[in-house]
């Protein structure tokens, strides 16, 4: 029976073989390919790229395949790979105002310059299972309107900004290099750069619940979806030898600008405040949640009372939003803990013996 705990090495190897077999599924059915995942499960790929902090569709699709569709596991694979990559430098800030737009909506105005562009959205679909998809489907055809000239699509924030109705976003220090949460430990209280980075990598479900909680009165901040835009932007990098920035590629991003509860003071007239969300690919739920939580976390900066709501609590939110950290620590409970358990057993037995002795002594005395 002592032998039973031995042989861990062989057990692990066999478990991994079985895992590989299970991943493949029924060999009589064609294997799913990486381009299929990239093309047909593209929103899963977008989420893995966003929370994995690495823009690489093929790699994210491969990770999803390897993880058998477990997206947190896929995010973990991408993160672990990302750590090994050399860093060449940082890009210039992307200009979302110059985005080639696929989708752009505003909930604050009926019509806006550049118009409302629905793009590919689940909104307004009836959530009825489409049984025709169970068979091989034909290639759906959709005619695309030409993407609007981005000069004709000013951001909603800039429209409000012109009138001074929304707080102006200013670089606190244009020369400062933004923090990098992947190359340092979080140090509380954090700046908004570090907060937004952490939220961008944060778990969609966790942020969704927190954002939802602000709507239900836990640090309510009266949000309006000022603008949601999805499209491609150029990534530029400053090249020392050339003396100017050159485009190195383009990426799809989703950006959300929430317009929130106004505030004013004796010196500043009332104006709306902002919450911000940004992701790789098309991650609307994530970016909206992120914007709600970003705004809630700005409470201190905006002089709001801390009402003890979870979404307002910087340490609580930032320390727990990372799903790779969270899943690791929760799942580590699977590891053996029998030494600690033995220690507790020993104490509980001792205390029970003492309690029994006390009860016995009391009985004898009566």
């Amino acid at each position, binding site marked *: 029976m*002592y032998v039973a705990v031995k042989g861990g090495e062989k057990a692990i190897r066999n478990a991994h073989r079985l895992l590989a077999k299970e991943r493949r599924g029924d060999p009589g059915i064609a294997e799913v390919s990486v381009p299929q995942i990239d093309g047909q499960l593209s929103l899963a790929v977008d989420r893995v790229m966003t929370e994995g902090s690495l823009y690489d569709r093929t790699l994210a699709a491969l990770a999803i395949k390897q993880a058998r569709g477990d997206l947190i596991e896929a995010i973990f694979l991408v993160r672990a790979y990302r750590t090994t990559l050399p860093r060449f430098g940082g890009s210039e800030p992307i200009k979302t105002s110059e985005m080639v737009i696929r989708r752009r909506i505003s909930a604050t105005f009926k019509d806006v310059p550049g118009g409302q562009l629905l793009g590919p959205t689940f909104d307004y679909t009836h959530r009825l299972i489409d049984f025709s998809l169970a068979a091989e489907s034909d290639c759906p055809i959709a005619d695309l309107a030409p993407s609007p000239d981005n000069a004709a699509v000013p951001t909603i924030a800039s429209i409000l900004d012109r009138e001074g109705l929304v707080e102006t976003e200013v670089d606190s220090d244009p020369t400062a290099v933004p923090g990098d949460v992947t190359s340092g430990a979080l*140090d509380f209280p954090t700046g908004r750069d570090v907060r937004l980075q952490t939220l961008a990598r944060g778990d969609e479900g966790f942020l969704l619940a927190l954002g939802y909680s602000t709507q239900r009165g836990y640090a309510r901040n009266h949000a309006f979806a000022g603008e949601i835009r999805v499209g491609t932007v150029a990534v530029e990098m400053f090249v020392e030898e050339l003396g100017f920035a050159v485009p190195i590629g383009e990426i799809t991003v989703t950006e959300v600008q929430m317009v929130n509860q106004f505030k004013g003071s004796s010196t500043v007239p009332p104006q709306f405040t902002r919450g911000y969300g940004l992701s790789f690919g098309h991650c609307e739920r994530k970016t909206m949640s992120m914007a709600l939580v970003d705004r809630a976390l700005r409470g201190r900066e905006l002089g709001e009372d801390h009402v003890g709501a979870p979404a307002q609590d910087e340490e609580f939110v930032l320390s727990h939003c990372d799903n790779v950290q969270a899943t690791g620590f929760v799942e580590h409970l699977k*590891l053996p803990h029998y030494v600690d358990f033995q220690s507790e057993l020993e104490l509980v037995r001792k205390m029970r013996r003492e309690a029994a002795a006390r009860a016995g002594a009391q009985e004898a005395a009566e």
Partner: protein
Amino acid sequence: MSTAAEAPKYDPAYNFAFLDEQTKRMIRRAILKAIAIPGYQVPFASREMPMPYGWGTGGMQVTAAILGPEDRLKVIDQGADDTTNAVSIRNFFRRTAGVETTERTADATIIQTRHRIPELPLREDQILVYQVPIPEPLRFLEPRETETRTLHALKEYGLMHVKLYEDIAIHGHIATTYAYPVQVSGRYITDPSPTPKFDNPKMNHMPALQLFGAGREKRIYAIPPYTEVASLDFEDHPFTIQAWDRPCDICGAEDTFLDEMVTDDQGGRMFICSDSDHCERRRTAGHTGPMTRDAAE
């Protein structure tokens, strides 16, 4: 062991011990700072490892940063070399660093551990690397990092003493049996990682360097060789360690930490050394326990 033949081969496609040299330098700087301020938790830029957080990523990064090609590595979990996660970590370093590994405590130059300190006293030429889940001993009394850092800075440890006092008032005992807080060199209260308090006395004036890595929490701390490590207690409730009223069933040791194994559903139990190497050495040296004696008869 019999499994050595099937061990993974060194894969030179990885940088030695997986981490890039710059990262290792960063970790070494944190380690040096930690040694200079015994028991103080040094923040470091913990990397994402190809193993999950909570599974020893901190200890692995420390090991990777101090490992050299000449080292002999031992990895234990719950005191044993053959527990699954210890096997996995040992294989990781065999594959990425190609270093020699051993199960013999006496032969190892670096020992990475989870939840135990080996029974055999360690030497000056050895380093003990602990895997740490929650490096902050005050965390369960005060969840906020901003608060606990201030408490450490002010050496304000009343909270911890009140907790231990309340334990005695309620239970008659200090109800902490593992991760029992220690004070290092009279200054910082430090978490010994979730080792049983049985192991705490071994930390005091240990000739070996003790390094602690917490990957998810991004902290490294250290106890230099021959440093005073005191387990917190009260004059009228002195610190005591666990004791068993029976020896190891296999090697007969009476001074080791014993694991309890359930042998049937009728209340059958056997107790054996949690330190598998120690038990093995004793058996090889001819020691027997109640169960091995029964078998021989």
